[in-house]
């Protein structure tokens, strides 16, 4: 057992972080609202970096790495608050922009519909592919996350079966894993933002970070982040090597703890910022809103808690 990153993994993580810092500073991320979250040129840079084909076999033109590595990459995407249907596109191992939705009894919320090249629908016993253009969907003018534009389809076309039930399960599992990785990145980033503010902002002639109330909020944010990191990394490692544990259980624990960290840290960061945190201008809310948008993706915490309970 060595649950620390290898040198190669540290390099991968740092490389991805630099790429994101260079290409996706928060000014750029904010501007992506105008292009509904996806700018084709920037998307190509992610494609070129192998973000979406990291786990695909080298024989298929992929990078041939494992889930542990893809977790590190998606953590960085989360840290940079990069929008777009990242998880679905990675799962499709595609250089196209891909969406994945669950077929539901009621209306279906489709993220980034107008920029999708492909749309996969998870069914109770398989996967169907649907032409995005064939879907009738109405845009919500006020998505909760400005960078996760959504459309609502009252019903989805049947589509063409492209995978069986087992593949659908694998997609759900990997979707939850990578979503958790993004949530982990969001938790870290918003903690960094809050800590920086707490050190700089003066009230009552002291940095607010010297008040125990603020300090302890930040400490709790760090705790949630590190607990989530352990769970998310463990889930990645377990998918790569199922002999070390129960894969479903590891992924559910990751999705629950990372979702919890992202949402609670987002809220706490706004509270640390006080009134400024309630302004659009301060970034804290963007992390929180992304966290909300991801909370229900590939199974809500409630869904995964139920799943975990049945595996006890």
């Amino acid at each position: 057992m060595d649950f620390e990153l290898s040198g190669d993994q540290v390099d991968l993580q740092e490389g991805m972080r630099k790429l994101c810092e260079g290409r996706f500073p928060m000014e750029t991320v904010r501007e992506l609202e105008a292009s509904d979250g996806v700018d084709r040129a920037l998307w190509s840079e992610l494609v070129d970096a192998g973000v979406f084909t990291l786990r695909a076999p080298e024989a298929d033109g992929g990078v041939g790495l494992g889930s542990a590595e893809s977790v590190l990459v998606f953590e960085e995407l989360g840290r940079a608050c990069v929008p777009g249907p990242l998880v679905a596109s990675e799962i499709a191992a595609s250089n196209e922009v891909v969406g994945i939705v669950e077929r539901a009894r009621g209306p279906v919320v489709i993220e980034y519909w107008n920029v999708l090249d492909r749309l996969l629908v998870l069914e109770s016993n398989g996967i169907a592919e649907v032409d995005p253009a064939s879907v009738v969907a109405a845009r919500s003018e006020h998505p909760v996350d400005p960078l996760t534009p959504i459309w609502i389809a009252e019903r989805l076309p049947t589509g063409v079966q492209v995978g069986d039930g087992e593949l659908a399960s694998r997609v759900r599992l990997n979707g939850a894993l990578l979503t958790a990785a993004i949530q982990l990145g969001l938790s870290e980033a918003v903690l960094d933002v809050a800590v920086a503010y707490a050190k700089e902002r003066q009230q009552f002639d002291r940095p607010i970070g010297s008040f125990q109330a603020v300090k302890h909020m930040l400490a709790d944010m760090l705790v949630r982040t590190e607990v989530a990191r352990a769970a998310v990394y463990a889930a990645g490692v377990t998918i790569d090597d199922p002999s070390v544990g129960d894969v479903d259980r590891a992924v559910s624990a990751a999705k629950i703890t990372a979702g919890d960290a992202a949402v609670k840290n987002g809220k706490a960061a706004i509270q640390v910022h006080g009134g400024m945190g309630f302004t659009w201008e301060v970034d804290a809310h963007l992390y929180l809103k992304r966290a909300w948008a991801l909370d229900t993706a590939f199974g809500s915490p409630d869904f995964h808690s139920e799943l975990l309970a049945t595996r006890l």
Partner: protein
Amino acid sequence: MAGVAMNLRDSDSDAAFRAELRGWLAEALPGFPPDRPGEDDWQGRREYDTAWQRTLFEAGYAGIAWSEEVGGRGATPTEQLIFLEEAEKAGAPYVGVNFVGLLHAGPTLYAEASVEQKAAHLPRILRGDEVWCQGFSEPSAGSDLASLRTRAIRDGDEYVINGSKIWTSHAQVADYCEMLVRTDPDASKHRGISWLIVPMATAGIDVRPLKTIVGGSEFSEVFLDNVRVPVANRVGDENDGWRVAMVTFSFERGTAFVGEMLQSMQLVRDLAQVAKKVTRGSATAWDDAGLRREIGHLSAGLDALWALTKRNVSQASRNGVPGVGGSVFKLHYSETRHRLGELTMRVLDRASLSMLDVSGLRSGKHVEGHLHAISISIAAGTSQIQRNIVAERVLGLPKDR
């Protein structure tokens, strides 16, 4: 025992007041346009809100809590509660742009201003002829309000003001701003502040909308560049403005959150209805014992807060001054609204991604309510500041600073 013991019943006079008010609202509201102009139409909103204020004034309901000598009704805190309750239940317009004038600047003027200043403003505020805004907070003075830095330098009969204010509601359409400025930078921070009446039409004032995380621009920033205001516009002594500003806080009679409270209770009832429509597995969210119970638990918290409101109002009626009931209320209300917001997201599941209703499901206001909740634990004293107040003033724990 009845009548003397603790009770929640209307007294005869309160019952009469309620009945009369209810009757009047039933008559007045149908003649009033139901829809307040939208977010970007500040002028339209000013007209709408002040028209309603004039309607109230003409019916004798303006300035419920103001004394009769300045044209108010001189109502008891209980009558004020009844007014707010009935207005909310009847769907009457909110106080809107009249908020600062009626509930903050007006009461301050009434307590501290000169005879001339009162005569110039109070009747006009009551009639809806004059709209006020508040210029207290600054970007660098939030929890530590007294550290404000907007400077006013005396130049003959005028103050020349430079600086900026933040979280100013209705600044776009206000006629006046109650403003705290620093007149003595060398004094200790609470001692060098003055309270000014600043006409918003004065040259050098620039109002810029401040976008909040909800998306709209409910508030503004106000930038002040050599703004000249007559010394005669000062209320109270020079450098005594902190005390003047604090006077108004003692005007709070436990009713500050009545409208919000009633709306929150409605929100929980509506969430139960929404839960019955959201599919969850093969049933609905309402069929989930855990979610249903949490809705019930939240409802208990709000019922308790509504009872606490009545206790706070009763205390204000008896003692005339507010206790720390307001801080206690606000702490629990903030927490309850945060919990309600979190529960909302769980109940709505995928519909929580939209701040607008999702195909027939009336979910939008619940998501927006969650965003609003975030401001409750921050605005008008963060929960951290409120806990300090409660700990130091009620429990007598040592000051930390």
